[in-house]
């Protein structure tokens, strides 16, 4: 019995260590990024780093300002959400409310596949098709914020669709039946009862998608134009935080390399904030549902 106790204890400790690994990794990532990135601020003030758009890391008088990349990231992500949210909502509503079993299964597998396609493949598709479409529709070189946003929209669509569907399906039946019984049409029920009831879940999905979009590297790198300048409008060439890291990573040394880790810190901070918001939004949606079923 003693040996058994020791064995069980040892196994539990091992399992616990495995469960601890994720947190340890997060802590390590934070610590190492900070340790390697923060020395930059001894030479470049934090505010200049964040709010200057002069990125000339290899010049004689180097400039490390990432404002244009921060704006680039948000521009591309915002545009992508502008496309993906309405489309994702529509498809999510279709799956949860309108489709019959077979077509829902078909669309769901299609969406799963869409989520599984590697981002370099999206990038190639972007170069060959999206940039051409964007060139024809909006002019310009075809490599810029709009093309990057279109690719990102396709990439974030699966997240938004599935979260919308799941949130809609999680709503208690009685809510829907109550509205229909009052003589509301199905559409009125969807817009006035179901979507509002599922809104925190949907919001969490949108923020999740936003996190994906901000962190996406390869696809935007291939179609975004990658010019280290302020984006000159919706159709201008754009460089995002992620693109900045991966482009310069292959040759950067010294302060330049440090500045890339600092860029990573900024990106990581944005992601952490978004993650936290998702956690809160999800928690709220769960407690909302519990509150409803408790009534």
């Amino acid at each position, binding site marked *: 019995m003693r040996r058994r106790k020791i064995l069980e204890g040892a196994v539990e400790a091992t399992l616990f260590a495995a469960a601890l690994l994720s947190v340890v990794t997060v802590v390590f*990532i934070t610590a190492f990024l900070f340790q390697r990135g923060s020395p930059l601020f001894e030479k470049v003030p934090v505010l200049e780093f964040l709010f200057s758009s002069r990125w000339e890391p290899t010049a004689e008088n180097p400039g490390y300002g990432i404002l244009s990349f921060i704006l680039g990231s948000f521009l591309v992500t915002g545009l992508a959400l502008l496309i993906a949210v309405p489309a994702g909502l529509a498809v999510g509503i279709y799956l949860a409310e309108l489709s019959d079993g077979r077509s829902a299964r078909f669309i769901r597998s299609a969406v799963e596949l869409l989520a599984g396609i*590697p981002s370099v493949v999206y990038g190639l598709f972007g170069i*060959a*098709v999206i940039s051409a479409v964007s060139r024809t529709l909006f002019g310009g070189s075809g490599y810029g914020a709009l093309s990057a946003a279109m690719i990102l929209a396709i990439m974030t669509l699966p997240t938004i669709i599935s979260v919308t569907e799941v949130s809609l399906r999680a709503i208690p039946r009685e809510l829907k039946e109550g509205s229909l019984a009052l003589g509301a049409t199905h559409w009125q029920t969807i817009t006035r009862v179901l979507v509002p009831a599922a809104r925190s879940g949907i919001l969490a999905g949108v923020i999740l998608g936003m996190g994906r979009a901000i962190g996406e590297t390869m696809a935007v790198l291939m179609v975004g134009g990658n010019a280290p300048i302020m984006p000159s409008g919706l159709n201008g060439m754009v460089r995002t935080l992620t693109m900045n890291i991966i482009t310069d990573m292959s040759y950067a040394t010294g302060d330049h390399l440090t500045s890339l880790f600092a860029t990573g810190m900024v990106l990581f901070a944005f992601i952490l904030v978004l993650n936290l918001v998702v956690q809160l939004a999800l928690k709220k949606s769960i407690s909302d549902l519990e509150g409803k079923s408790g009534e």
Partner: protein
Amino acid sequence: MNDTSATRSVGTRSVGTRSAGTRHRAAIGSQAVAFTAIRGLSILTIAVLGLILGFILYKGLRYSNIDRSAYLPYAEDAPDGLVVAVNSGRAPGALDWGVLYGMFTDEYIDWAKIDGSDDDLTPIAIDPATPEGARAEAFLFGTEEAGGYPAWGGLVQTASTSAAALAAVAETPGAVAIVPEAAARGAPGVMTLPLRRLVLAVNPEVAEFVDDSYIEDLSGRDVMDLLSGRARNWKEFGGPDLAVAPVAPPEGSVLAAAVRSAGLEYPAGPGSPVPGGGLEYLAAIGGTSGAAGLAFAGDAAVAGLPAAMLTRRTSGWNLTIGYLLEAPRLSGRTGGISTIIANTFLMLLLTVAFAAPLGLAAAVYFVEYARQGPFVRALRLGTETLAGIPSIIFGLFGFLFFVNILGFGFGLLSGSLTLTLMILPTIIRTSEEALKSVPRAMREGSLALGATKLQTVARVVVPAAMPGILTGLILAVGRAVGETAALLFTMGSDYQLAKGLFSSARGLSAHVYLLFSEGISFDRAFSTAAVLVFVVLLFNFAAKRLIGRMNRSAAA
């Protein structure tokens, strides 16, 4: 609100009914519009997916490009009674005149840009002092009376006779020689390549920049129109405002015969042949405003006549069995992707070996052992956070931690460990779901038999949850296979087969990116992407099958 109800109760019954009916119809109408829009968007999503998959797979399987070239597609087997002799081990295919010229003038040092192999180029010339050698020299550089002069490159080796040249060609895989047709016929170990040398020579005025306009690339049809006189003015092709003056080659010349064999007949009329020999013909093109006529590339160059650029569409198989089975050469410019496929699977194997036990162990802890509390909530928050971190950050971390601090260097091990951290949250989450779906009764049944908790988990719960755990694992690996950003600076980019854990290795997705970003080959990027997509689809399909089996066995 109050108003309407008041109206309704006071007003006559018919009025109330009508307005309610109108409202109802309007509601139904807007519902119809909204539903149609929603269905449309859903179909659009499917269409986009179909477009992406179809496009990638199609572009991966077939290439179809528009090539720019000055040469007409017609190739001669024995131009001027001479042949281009190469080693019989070479791939057959026609050569452009410019390439042949370049081979003997040091423009090329190997065959990579010519036929994709990596043999060194060995141009062999017959001693120009011999009659055979003189013929070949004149063929390549033009005759003295036409203004040509020999410009042999430094790589060129000299052979004393055509027989000696042929013997050298038969021995050397990368050799090329220009020999009389009669000598080459039946020579062992040698084959001949047909040559494209017809171009559309135009008067220099036509090719000039005038008023911001420049002659565009011509299609085969445009050439026919120009020669036959159907096209009247160069403006039609973006060029200067000049009347087209087609000039036909002298009757009975080699050029006329070549033009006839190419199927390009000059009609009678404006394009009447110039009397005299080839030199007069070229002089006529050079001297006539707006003139155009077919010529051999070498002659046109010697005469200083510009050649119009032509476009033609080429297509063929992009993804071949050979591409899958051969090792890449020259940064992937030639060869296949066999080592890259192998590296990808090695990487996945390692990743699964690390991630599966770790993920399962963490999931077992969360489901079977963890008690609710702030500490476990922190652990869960960590897992959720890890899931949201973008791959580029993992790349930075892997570069810092595995590559530099732990000193693993760029290689399979660093890459796999980075991937492990990335897919860990997915594996934990799906394994947790699978473990939770094992009924409580199973656990109680086992515990009631006196099994310990560990025995219960290891022998009953985990086996029962195995299909779900495997499904999650396959899906996670399917994601990992497409990862690029995290691997570029952890796994390295050596396209040879990895020799060990610390050996730099390139996977499929990195290959796709590097083929594109290093400007090596767009076509090859697509065919590699098609293989990558196929692998991803395979993993998805496997996961679907497993889920299907699970559902069936649950129903049984």
